[in-house]
């Protein structure tokens, strides 16, 4: 866990509201695992005050990449950054997905909704390197929300694409596609990242078929490294629901540990 206040930006791609920034951060890069995240400073001064959590989207040699959707002021400021400028990043943070060697040769699903696809690209490459057969299930609201679909296709990933309005891929939710694909041939493992309702549905589908699943949760973060207790969500610890820090004990949790029901909390 390191701070690199001056990671040099070496690449930028943008598709509408989605932006990919690549930057050199050799030490962080050496430690990074898929599912981990960075805390990124969006301005120098006191406003916006807090860093923004962003999943590690890719690692290539000594460079890392973040892929994000412009969601508000912080990400809008980040989107203005250009190659040659620097980025102040802290990381790698959190626990990451279980890239287990025993997945070699097995089929695994990576289910991403919207900007939730960000950490799954890094994950997919690591799983592929391990020898797993990765199927990407990538959903968005419209064709503008699945900007990475072409890349996954070009890089020969098996991909099921969905959009809510049918403007690209199959029409409907990505969870419907998951249900269908898992029905055809159950994977050894499901990894997912996306909005809460999607993750809840993924957990339900996985549980119904007894497929182990890992979900990457989101939460407002103060620090990202366990100091403020600001980022808690309801997660079962030894079977008992507790307010657990997403940044330290997550962001990735076994699907069955996450408590979705607000009343059962």
């Amino acid at each position, binding site marked *: 866990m390191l701070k690199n206040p001056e990671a040099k930006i070496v690449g930028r791609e943008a598709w509408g509201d989605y932006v990919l920034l690549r930057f050199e951060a050799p030490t962080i890069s050496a430690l990074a695992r898929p599912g981990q995240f960075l805390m990124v400073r969006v301005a120098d001064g006191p406003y916006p005050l807090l860093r923004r959590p962003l999943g590690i989207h890719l690692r290539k040699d000594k460079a890392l990449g973040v892929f994000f959707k412009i969601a508000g002021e912080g990400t809008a400021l980040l989107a203005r950054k250009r190659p040659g400028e620097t980025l102040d990043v802290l990381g790698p943070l959190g626990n990451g997905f279980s890239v287990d060697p025993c997945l070699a040769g097995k089929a695994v699903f990576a289910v991403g909704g919207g900007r939730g696809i960000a950490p799954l690209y890094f994950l997919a490459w690591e799983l592929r390197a391990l020898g797993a057969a990765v199927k990407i299930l990538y959903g968005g609201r419209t064709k503008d929300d699945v900007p990475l679909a072409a890349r996954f296709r070009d890089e020969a990933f098996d991909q099921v694409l969905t959009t809510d309005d049918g403007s690209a891929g199959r029409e409907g939710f990505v969870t419907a596609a998951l249900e269908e694909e898992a029905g055809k041939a159950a994977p050894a493992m499901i990894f997912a990242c996306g909005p809460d309702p999607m993750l809840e549905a993924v957990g339900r589908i996985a549980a119904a078929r007894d497929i182990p699943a890992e979900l990457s949760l989101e939460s407002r*973060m103060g620090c990202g490294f366990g100091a403020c207790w600001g980022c808690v969500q309801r997660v079962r610890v030894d079977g008992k629901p507790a307010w657990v820090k997403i940044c330290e004990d997550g962001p990735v949790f076994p699907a069955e540990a996450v408590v979705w029901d607000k009343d059962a909390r």
Partner: protein
Amino acid sequence: MTDLSVDLGFLRLKNPVLAASGTFGYGLEFEPFLELERLGGFVVKGLYYGPREGNPPPRLVETPSGLINAIGLQGIGVAAFAEKILPRLRSLKTAVIVNVCGASEEEYVRVVEFLDGCEGIAAYELNISCPNVQKDGACPAFSPEATAAIVREVKRAGRRPVITKLSPNVTSVVEIALAAQEAGTDAVALVNTFLAMAIDVETRRPKLGNVLGGLSGPAIRPIAVRMVWQVASRLKVPVIGVGGIRTGTDALEFLIAGARAVQVGTANLVDPDACLRVLAGLEDYCRRHGIGRLEEIVGTVKT
């Protein structure tokens, strides 16, 4: 080389930069980022006697140059602290201060009595000013009597120096500070957070699970500096300044206003090495101004 040390009377700090409670975890979380021994000291997260669940999320809202938190003092309690954390802090050559919480006078006393049995604590900081616990944000530090009562009981029961942490949500922080001094506190720290609220206008719900929370960060600094100045000019015991410090210049404002030490809070969350930046700023200032002992500038504002 400048002498950065400051004397609180009951405790000499190698430098005036402390990390503030609740923004520095139990200290250990920051070891990857800085050498804890570089700090004057740090105040660990508030401790009740037993473990505490804290408030439902969302617990944080960012505001212009500020942060509202409603953590609700989730924590592990004194026993787990003494068993799991304190042994790892004890050997550090820096002041470890414990932020003491209580739902009642008795609980403050129980916490202090328990901790009195442990080694490796430099002082207690009485958190009588957390706005996240009672429904309407009220706290003992709203009243001179309630403040004095807790200070008195804790001083009677405990063996260590006591820093009383005051609330800024009052008409006269001087009055409360004087009450704490009268009751025997060894120092006061101010300010805790400002009672605040934010509403998500789309859903018309409060943005915090707890409805109310405490505002911290650079936004509040000018109010905190004012309060420190008012209190320092009226108190005999030392004042520790807290509120929105990010840089050496920010810390200097408090010192010049009359604080003998400062605490860095929210800035730690943004930059885990923020305390070192503050320290470097102080060193640089002393060098530029030819100041041999930093303590000389305390309270020197020319009004």
